[in-house]
């Protein structure tokens, strides 16, 4: 994986496959504390203790199409490489929360990458799932919630050409506002 936005896409796809109704993604950058953290939280089926212990083992997967599951081990490795760590909170019926913390200025910290592409791929690929994205950069916050968008669209589906453009535009403007220096 080249950047963190691809890891986010990968972990969020797991959430959808765990039957999540809502997937909440949070990215927080704190330059003073030199921390960048990612959090992907879902209300899917969750995992029992035995499964949770095995998920960082690359030779474990719940899938039956192949025998190796590299998603979380790769993210754990990316965090470790930037003096960070990965933690997973989960219980059956309680959903799952994956948190990865990085030292922001570390030379091996992967760039955040294209968050817009990741969110558009998730939203359009899973019209039945709600996505909430929150990014904070040194106290400035951007929030995007497909539930709010659906209310505004009065339940019109999100996969028409004009809705795709609208979602993309909203995200681009919101993320740009985080980087603006005033």
């Amino acid at each position, binding site marked *: *994986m080249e950047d963190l936005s691809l890891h986010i896409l990968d972990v969020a*796809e797991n959430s959808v496959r765990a039957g999540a109704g809502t997937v909440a993604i949070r990215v927080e950058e704190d330059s003073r504390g030199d921390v960048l953290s990612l959090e992907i939280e879902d209300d899917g089926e969750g995992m029992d203790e035995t499964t949770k212990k095995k998920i960082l083992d690359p030779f474990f997967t719940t899938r039956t199409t*192949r025998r190796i599951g590299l998603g979380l081990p790769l993210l754990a490795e990316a965090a470790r490489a930037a003096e960070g760590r990965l933690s997973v909170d989960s219980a059956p019926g309680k959903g799952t929360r994956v948190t990865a913390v990085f030292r922001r200025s570390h030379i091996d910290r992967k760039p955040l990458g294209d968050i817009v592409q990741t969110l558009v*791929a998730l939203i359009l690929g*899973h019209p039945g799932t709600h996505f909430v994205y929150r990014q904070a950069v040194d106290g400035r916050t951007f929030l995007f919630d497909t539930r709010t968008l659906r209310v505004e*669209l*009065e339940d019109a589906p999100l996969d028409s050409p*004009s809705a*795709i*453009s609208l979602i993309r535009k909203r995200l681009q403007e919101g993320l740009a506002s985080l980087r603006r220096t005033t």
Partner: protein
Amino acid sequence: MPKLTLEELAKVREQARKKTHLREGGEVRAKVTVHMGTCGIAAGARTIMSTLLSEIESRDVRDVQVTNSGCAGLCSREPMITVELAGEAPVKYVDLNPDKMKTIFAEHVLGGKIVAKYALGIGSEKTDFPKE
């Protein structure tokens, strides 16, 4: 989030109404599934998805459904998609890049003709017929 403008809402709703109408008439042209497992993502599935969505947007196509799926067990052939035209057998395309995606969209999804050279499983077990 900023509020939607009335024009934006009207546009989305109008397109949605037409799409629903098509679906009720059983006329969704095709379903395109992008394989979005760890293997697919690492190999470029997100770029394939973006290319597909840009084609839908720029050509204003309203009767194609897009969805994501997981790993299909052929990790070495990612990025992969599956194209299923209404009433026809699904076709898997492998080793994709944006250009191949555009060709498949134009020729198969819109044109109805399978792009054999990018498809999985066509010609993989070639028989050498005896020459006369």
